[in-house]
């Protein structure tokens, strides 16, 4: 319980204070916050439903504030996955959960929910999926939790939090031509490490924010967890408001950090200086710039690849597909390289189709999948055999993440991934 006088707060602190019914919350303080949205998927919802059932409570706290998305092992990967999806479907039906998205309506959850306007600025969102931090791009406090927290959230509409300290990232300048949000966040994770922001909020501010597209911001916020952060968050600006127009399902509440808020660290990022960046096996913080990779190629030979994955909650949005199409248009993917592209939602898929992107992909020799998390977590739709290497626009490359323990994943932007697909090795999009 805080008995401190009101002090300056970060954007995250302000949102948490408001949802805890307090004027001020201090880092380290434990609070109960009211939830605007509780999210689960086909893997994490079944254990949550089991725990919820133990409470013996007939109804969820608010059937309009729960979202259930079957995206991980779908379309049903096997019998057990079909059973897990069925459990979630039945629960959604029994509880009249309107934000249940069936195959045909669904998408990858962290692309789908913003698209549907289900998260708005000022929200507190929990999701039983670590990449729930994605919605920080919309100026919400959004964080990953486990199935039991999801169950408690569905029952009570509350979640406990320990208020985080914050790292402020001051962005200046703008990205150069072949560089995108993915390179920014990989650069940051490489710099601070996979526990560099452990338990902290990553608050992105500065004149450089304005030049970042919403897709850039979703990508950056998405990978806050890979630095160990509790959440990533962007201020609400004209771009955010334009995104939410005719889309946001609830009113926005805009919070701004106090000028004299206290940060554990302040890190300046010159967007113009960011280079295409790749995370080498087996950790997101094992980064190299494309320039280092080109030097390595001269000394030791190229890093040849077997598969390219373009998609995921990190980089499966329309801008990502447009970027990939730039490097694949009129080209062919290298012989022997399997290139799998995952538009993240049905709408993105349809928009890509209408823009001629799908044709570009197929003509280049890539394949295009329905929205699914698929190979990102080693589920299905493109698993790696022993000794195989993939370049992926996904978010984790731990041992065994996409298949055999002796396979390798190189995390990269859509530009690097598409350029590499054509070259058959990790390649520089600037030279494509």
């Amino acid at each position, binding site marked *: 319980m805080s008995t401190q006088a009101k002090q300056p707060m970060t954007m995250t602190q302000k949102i948490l204070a408001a949802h805890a019914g307090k004027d001020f919350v201090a880092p380290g303080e*434990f609070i109960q916050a009211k939830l605007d949205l509780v999210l689960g998927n086909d*893997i*994490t919802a*079944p*254990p949550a439903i*089991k*725990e919820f059932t*133990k*409470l*013996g409570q007939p109804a969820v706290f608010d059937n309009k504030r729960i979202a259930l998305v079957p995206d*991980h*092992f779908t379309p049903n*990967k*096997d019998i*057990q*996955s079909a059973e*897990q999806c069925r459990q979630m479907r039945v629960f959604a039906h029994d509880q009249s959960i309107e934000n249940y998205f069936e195959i045909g309506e669904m998408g990858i959850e962290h692309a789908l929910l913003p698209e549907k306007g289900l998260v708005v600025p000022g929200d507190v969102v929990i999701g*039983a*999926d*670590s990449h729930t931090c994605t919605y920080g791009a919309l100026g919400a406090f959004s964080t*990953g*939790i*486990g*199935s*039991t*927290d999801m*169950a*408690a959230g569905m*029952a*009570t509409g509350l979640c*406990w939090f*320990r208020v985080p300290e914050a790292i402020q990232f001051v962005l200046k300048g703008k990205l150069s031509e072949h560089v995108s949000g993915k390179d920014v966040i990989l650069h940051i994770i490489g710099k601070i490490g*996979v*526990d560099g922001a*452990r*338990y902290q909020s990553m608050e992105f501010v500065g004149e450089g924010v304005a030049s970042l597209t919403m897709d850039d911001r979703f990508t950056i916020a998405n990978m806050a*967890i890979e630095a*160990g952060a*509790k959440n990533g968050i962007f201020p609400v600006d004209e771009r955010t408001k334009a995104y939410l127009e005719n889309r946001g399902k609830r009113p926005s509440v805009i919070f701004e950090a106090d000028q004299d808020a206290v940060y554990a660290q302040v890190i300046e990022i010159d967007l113009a200086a960011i280079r295409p960046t790749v995370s080498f096996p087996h*950790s997101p913080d094992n980064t190299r710039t494309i320039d280092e990779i080109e030097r390595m190629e001269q000394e030791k030979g190229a890093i040849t690849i077997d598969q390219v994955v373009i998609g995921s909650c990190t980089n499966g949005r329309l801008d990502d597909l447009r970027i990939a199409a730039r490097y694949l248009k009129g080209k062919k993917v290298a012989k022997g390289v399997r290139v799998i592209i995952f538009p993240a939602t049905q709408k993105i898929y349809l928009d890509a189709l209408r823009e001629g992107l799908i044709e570009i992909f197929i003509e280049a020799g890539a394949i295009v999948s329905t929205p699914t998390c698929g190979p990102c*977590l*080693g*589920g299905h739709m493109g698993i790696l055999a022993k000794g195989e290497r993939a370049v992926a626009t996904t978010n*984790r490359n*731990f*041992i*065994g*993440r996409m298949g055999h*323990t002796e396979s390798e994943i190189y995390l990269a932007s859509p530009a690097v991934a598409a350029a590499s697909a054509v070259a058959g090795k990790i390649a520089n999009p600037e030279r494509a």
Partner: protein
Amino acid sequence: MSTSGRAFKFGDNIDTDVIIPARYLSTADPEILAKYCMIDIDDTFAGKVQKGDIMIGGRNFGCGSSREHAPIAIKGAGVSCVIAETFARIFYRNAFNIGLPIIECAEAARKIADGDEIRVDFESGKIENITKGETYQAQPLPPFMRDIIDGGGLIASIKKSRGEA
């Protein structure tokens, strides 16, 4: 409340994919998950671990995916406690929520060797290395976390607070 057992030592950044790979996530059954615990970095672990044994991690234990199946697998394998230098935050929450005791203690994490016999007293936070004849002191849990673990996990705590059994 205390526990004792053999230490199984792992390194830094033990991620939840390595604790329980996604290919096993078609179930949340602790007995099934236990069989595959740590399989991708030590395929002998599940066969060797005995009820009461203790897992030792370095920094950022449990990082990566939020899968609650990770602490479920560890607990299902019979591990009575995880001691690490630091924990990733989602794993930390999940462990408390499902009733898997965890302790942050840098000294213990560094000095305990694989195979050491360890005794942990949860009340006092005292960790005894019986093999080496050393003792390490963990910080007491924040009262908030104590309440969750004393309540038997999050759901049980909620039931208690509602006046139910």
